[in-house]
């Protein structure tokens, strides 16, 4: 279903992150006229096209959605998303509490965090802040009861089903496993973010 989001926006319900990413990739490849923003979410893709012909765009999005859904059902692989490897020094302040909550040792926390490929679901909260999906279920821990007033840039953290790298210093309530020297956000770079929706990410002990 495609919902109206104001005069210039259409919210495409994809029902899955995988289909959101396929739609996002297809829309960036075949960008329809006047499309200014494409914002994928876990179940949706928002498309904003000021001054465009909304009904034409809606018809186009419906065709695209049907096509990408068919490809997805046919298990046709999505266009290869980039892979980013992130070296991490696992010395975070919450490493031991996370191990305790997970019921395992610190080494196992590191092995489970670095041991699999995660995928950027979407970005939000702050510029360049990516919600990384696919975290090992053992590492699903609640956020801190009281968020820290400042988390340094490059902090590698987990909360609930997600992991993240803090792109800039900001307040935050995620549990810190370590830090990376890799700059994931740089306004002078083009694109400014190392992550975009669909980017595959692998953490690696530094």
């Amino acid at each position, binding site marked *: 279903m495609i*919902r*109206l*989001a*104001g*005069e*210039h*926006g259409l*919210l495409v319900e994809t029902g899955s992150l995988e289909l959101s990413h396929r739609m*996002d990739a297809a829309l960036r490849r075949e960008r329809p006229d006047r499309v*200014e*923003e*494409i*914002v*994928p*979410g*876990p*179940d*949706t*893709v*928002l498309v*904003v096209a*000021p001054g465009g012909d909304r009904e034409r765009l809606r018809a186009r999005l419906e065709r695209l959605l049907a096509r990408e859904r068919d490809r997805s059902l046919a298990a046709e692989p999505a266009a290869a998303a980039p892979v980013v490897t992130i070296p991490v020094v696992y010395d975070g302040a919450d490493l031991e509490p996370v191990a305790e909550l997970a019921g395992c040792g610190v080494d196992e926390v590191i092995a489970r965090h670095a041991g699999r490929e995660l995928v950027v679901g*979407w*970005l*939000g*909260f*702050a*510029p*360049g*802040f*990516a919600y990384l999906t696919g975290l090992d279920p053992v590492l699903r821990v609640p956020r801190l009861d009281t968020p820290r007033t400042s988390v340094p840039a490059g902090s590698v953290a987990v909360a609930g089903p997600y992991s993240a790298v803090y792109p*800039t210093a900001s307040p935050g309530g995620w549990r810190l496993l370590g830090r990376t020297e890799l700059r994931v956000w740089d*306004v002078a770079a083009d*694109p*400014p*973010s190392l*992550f*975009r*929706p669909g980017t595959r990410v692998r953490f690696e002990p530094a």
Partner: protein
Amino acid sequence: MIEIIVPGPYATVQDLGRPGYAHLGVPRSGAADLESLKLANRLVGNPEGLAGVELTLGSARLRFLRGAWAALAGAPVPVSGPARGAGMGVPFWVPAGAELRLGLPARGLRTYLAVRGGIAVEPVLGSRSTDSLSGLGPEPLRAGARLPVGPAAGVIAADVAPLPEPGPAVLRLLPGPRDDWFVPEALEELCASPYAVTQDSNRVGVRLRGPELVRAKDGELPSEGMVTGAVQVPPSGQPIVFLADHPPTGGYPVIGVVRAADLGVAAQLRPGDEVRFSTRLRA
């Protein structure tokens, strides 16, 4: 160069914002009342998208270190200083060394000062706008800050522009995308009586207090893309109208979206004002 002597309660540099980065978590930002910034720019012969100063509740003093043409639009403020013929909606010359003094607006919230050549601070991701949510762009203006002015181009073609007459504050909205998350009467309720603008409103959104909008669905909406003008309803049932610095994604359901033509009306609401919503196309 323009030196800020007193910035007033909150002043920033704004242009038309940084579109195209919402998927990377970057708000669009830009002038909250885009039409007023564009008008001020046109009055001094600038392209509409050059950066100007967005003042909140006026009360500012600025010294022009070099003479320049300037214009004001948006919330009408009293103007004094040695600038001849200075006022709202007209281009006027500010001589070198002169101080432009702007008072408190009688109505409205945001006043835009355009200078011929535009404010030429360093752009970030293609925009000179201060993004109050994520901190991109120049710092909010402080006493002593100095703003460079760009080279003038084009001609000053207008000599006066009528300021829009204040009408009743009505925000026309299109229902959705998540009106079905509320009880069927909720939209009617939203439009039935006025809402009051609260103190904690800012460039992110206009926070309102009034009849509580009741949800039909429990649970949480997965985070999704948000448009400017979205009327987001948190669990309190009190709506928030998203302005220029709104987060690109959000998790509270949006009952309706304010029409683009009325975003300037929303941006000029000040704490204590009353505002009505309407789902009719004509206010």
